[in-house]
């Protein structure tokens, strides 16, 4: 139910701040998404989307932290 999926903003229509809408690509599938709750997000940013709404902008440097932490535990085996 609380499933939310990451997608990349490809365009924004912000004529109306309440209805700030955008097109978001989910691996090539484009959907209209309400961007009213992520005023700071722009084209090219990744957002996490639930029930037609972007919940938050995804932060790439934070995203990489999980893997940096793994490096600290011990080096990942190379392929």
């Amino acid at each position, binding site marked *: 139910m609380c499933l939310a999926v990451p997608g990349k903003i490809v365009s924004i229509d912000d004529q109306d701040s309440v209805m700030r809408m955008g097109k978001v690509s989910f691996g090539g599938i484009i959907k209209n998404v309400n961007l009213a*709750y992520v005023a700071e997000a722009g084209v090219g940013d990744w957002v996490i989307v639930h*029930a037609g709404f972007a919940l938050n902008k995804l932060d790439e440097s934070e995203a990489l932290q999980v893997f940096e932490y793994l490096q600290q535990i011990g080096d990942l085996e190379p392929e």
Partner: protein
Amino acid sequence: MKYVEEYRDPEAVHKISEEIHRITRGSWNVMEVCGGQTHAIMKYGIEELLPKSITMLHGPGCPVCVTPVELIDKAIAIAAQPGVIFCSFGDMLRVPGTQRDLLAVKASGGDVRMVYSPLDALNIARECPYLQVVFFAIGFETTAPANAMAVYQARQYGIDNFSVLVSQVLIPPAIELLLNAPQTQISAFLAPGHVCSIIGYEAFESIAAQYHTPIVVTGFEPVDILSGILHCIQQLESGRAVVENQYSRAVQRQGNPAALKMMNEVYIVSDRKWRGIGFIPRSGLTLSDKYAAYDAERCFGAVSYSDEVATVCISGTILQGIKKPRDCPAFGNTCTPENPLGATMVSSEGACAAYYAYAAHM
């Protein structure tokens, strides 16, 4: 970054699993609160990657599961009325009421529609001004801002043939209830990442301190869930109990202020009944007076709640992490996803349904 594949990397998964094995000394029970995480844990076989001394408990975080049967019966009664278009997320359509489910209403001629977003339901209301459009506004804090926005826009644009049947519940009061239970066995929590993307995690800090229980905000992919468990075990083994944020790519401490503002505009906090548990004080949301005209209970009559009827089903104790699905004599016998007896079997995110789908023969 694609924000998905990286978090399913087998090498990373094994590395974290090894680290958990290396540091674990005690026996610990870690509860994932969210049904989406329960589903992922079963789907990816994450319990198989943990030491035997770590037990995963599956919490009450499936809004479909905990929606009271009285509300589902109300939804069915509204949907069966002529002149009504009843809109719902797909998960709710197959959940049985006392007599039948919403799909059965549709099969007998009712106008029941599955929508992806509450704004889709609002658009239907805009396009069909002579019909009453009712949206089943269920969910936790993740869904509340979306549902709130639909009500806000209905008022803003004067769409008066739109109303919502509200079943909004809140996670922090449920966590406190679980920790207050005398028979609680929970050592630590994985807090639900998407709920926290809205509310942040300040509310959990006092809970972690008061009950001396680690709480780790956690995402939904295998690397996320195992990292969340690793953080819990690190805290438990060193005697710490604080809130940590494993899902920092999507969650900030203060949550999403714009979404919280909209929730506060449209809703007030209220008592709510949880299927399988009963009433929990201040554990849900109801439309504020300003938006009461959009409350389906005002338009179609209020829901009357009764006490839970005792059956063989033990879903209440499963939701609270006291028992596991296989402790129930009905599991997989008289209780299946086709004919569920209780809360934890009614949705694919319920613990019993997840066990049935992925671990029935283990």
